[in-house]
């Protein structure tokens, strides 16, 4: 827990390091693979939808599926989720319905949040997935406050928040980590260090020896984990969640991974990084690594893998075609939800717009 050495679980020989084994059943091991596969299929579709102009924007998490799924797999009912815009996988794994997720991309009437935000700004009351916003790391203090509330009421639940390497530079990261340390809130800070904040490499983001060591500045444990090793992520996040739920306070986890695709559909990563670098990391693709591991364990074969991929694609395709046909959100909804009750000035503005008077 010095925040420097890297925790791994899947060993090259197909076994799991007993010290870091999350102890999943064979069924769960396959379910993890299913979620990762679904996530990848979703990203491919998301990008394609944007390219063809059917949605406006998309943020893929390709290459980071082990973080999202490994962490999401340890979340329980009652826990709170404060992910970044890149972490639909966390929510999906926890139970965010694919249909709701896909509907958000279209921002039409089927979107539970009424087209209020760009794609990838998720929200779901049932699983305590708190509305994602665009400013980097603003959700971190929320995860501290929410956890404080749960703790005050004596509920054995945790709040998890995810963010990137760039997020560690923000004032909100500093505030949230420090408050979590002082108030010992049941908060798990999962930093997905994907090496880049858009074009800025993590070595330019901070001079610290690792991101996990930053935990020392707040008197909380800092753990570094191979973020492309889904079992290792599952283990350390599971432990941190358990610690939090049982009153042991917060943990910072740095999951070392790589953003294999662009920052978003607006980004062209070839401007700032080499194909060789990407290729190097592609070899460690978390899904391929995990599939190889499952195959060595005899839990998966090529055929089952193909089936999983086909099923994932079909599920996404179905969700898209369901969502896409929904009509646009009604114009008057523009003025709703600013306050619980619409005040006079907004009613006047609404009437102006609807009457064509502006």
């Amino acid at each position, binding site marked *: 827990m010095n925040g420097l050495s890297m925790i791994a679980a899947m060993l090259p020989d197909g076994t799991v390091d007993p010290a870091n084994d999350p102890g999943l059943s064979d069924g769960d091991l396959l379910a993890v693979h299913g979620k990762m596969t679904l996530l990848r299929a979703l990203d491919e579709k998301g990008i394609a939808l944007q390219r063809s102009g059917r949605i406006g924007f998309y943020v893929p998490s390709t290459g980071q599926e082990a973080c999202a799924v490994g962490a999401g797999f340890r979340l329980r009912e009652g826990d*709170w989720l404060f992910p970044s815009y890149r972490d639909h996988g966390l929510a999906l794994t926890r139970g965010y319905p694919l249909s709701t997720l896909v509907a958000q991309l279209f921002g039409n009437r089927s979107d539970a949040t009424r087209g209020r935000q760009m794609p990838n700004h998720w929200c779901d009351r049932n699983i305590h997935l708190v*509305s994602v916003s665009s400013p980097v790391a603003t959700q971190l203090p*929320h995860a*501290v*406050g929410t956890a404080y509330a*749960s703790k005050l009421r004596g509920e054995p639940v945790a709040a998890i928040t995810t963010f990137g390497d760039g997020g560690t530079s923000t004032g*909100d990261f500093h*505030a949230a980590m420090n408050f979590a340390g002082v108030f010992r809130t049941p908060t798990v800070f999962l930093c997905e260090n994907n090496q880049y904040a858009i074009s800025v490499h993590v070595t330019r983001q901070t001079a610290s020896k690792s991101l996990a060591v930053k935990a020392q500045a707040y008197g909380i444990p800092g753990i570094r984990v191979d973020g492309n090793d889904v079992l290792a992520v599952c283990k350390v996040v599971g432990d941190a969640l358990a610690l939090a739920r049982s009153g042991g306070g917060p943990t910072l986890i740095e999951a070392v991974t790589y953003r294999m695709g662009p920052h978003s559909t607006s980004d062209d990563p070839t401007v700032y990084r080499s194909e060789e670098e990407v290729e190097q990391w592609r070899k460690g693709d978390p899904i391929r690594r995990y599939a190889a591991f499952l195959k060595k364990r005899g839990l998966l074969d090529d055929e089952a893998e193909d089936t999983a991929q086909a099923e994932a694609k079909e599920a996404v395709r179905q969700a898209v075609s369901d969502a896409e046909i929904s009509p646009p959100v009604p114009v008057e909804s523009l003025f709703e939800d600013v*306050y619980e009750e619409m005040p006079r000035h907004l009613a006047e503005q609404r009437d102006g717009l609807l009457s064509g008077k502006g």
Partner: protein
Amino acid sequence: MPQATLLQAIHDTLHEEMARDPRVLVMGEDVGREGGVFRVTEGLIDRFGPDRVIDTPLNEGGIVGMAIGMALNGLRPVVEIEFADFIYPAFDQIVSELAKLRYRSAGLFTAPVVVRAPSGGGIKGGAYHSQSPEAYFIHTAGLTVAMPSTPADAKGLLASAVRGPDPVLLFEPKALYRTVKGEVPEGEHLVPFGKGRIVRPGEDLTLVAWGAMVPVASMAADLAAAEGVRIEVIDPRTLWPLDIALIEESVNRTGRAVVLHEAPRTCGFGAEVSALIQERCFLRLKAPVGRVTGYDTPFPYALEKSYLPDPEKTACAVRAAMEF
């Protein structure tokens, strides 16, 4: 009805609300043992303990951000910003998060946080202990911004804020904390948001003022009365959403209006009030809507008295409107 200072009224209301509802808590710098630098939260920690009267580390963004998290998970946090001048480190959390959570989540999540901040000049606090930043938040869609000028309104607005469904910023005119005394209704007393108050009726000119400028307005009205001019003083109490109907009705009657505030003139709330009045009362206006405000400079130290609006400057603007 018992008499109390504005400060006492806020203190007592916090006490009552915390006693009424275990979800209510207060948090901020020095609010615990110290009772806040103005002593507004004095003694609350003895009654409600440090888990509900929370001394925080020195980070206003963290305080508001944490409060948002608490509020969306069922608590009713009342945040104290030590001086309104130090609210800016929390600006992003307030503008990007607090104000927008309900809208962006289509009501799935809400954060009814109350942010209290002593504001305004009059205590020789210089550039950083005197500001009146209300306009920044009025311009931010999704917030309710209120400022009491009497102990009773302080109680009523604070109680409404603590019980209400939406985030509220309550700027407390620190110059009035101990200088204004008044009756405070016992028991439940809620002042609804968006309802102004006629402080003093009059027929010749409408003077809109809030916070520590309300007593200044009253003094100016006295000066004007000596010159035979009857001023109607209106305290909107809630700055936004504004009780424009009350002001409109008044100006339609008087035909003249002046707005009075401490904050710098340009893009201050006076500009909005002025714009609204001329939009709504154009044909009744006998003179342009006047503004008496702080100047467009940082808040000074040595020249505080020259900087702040006072009854004389206000009377001047009234005269200009009457003689237009």
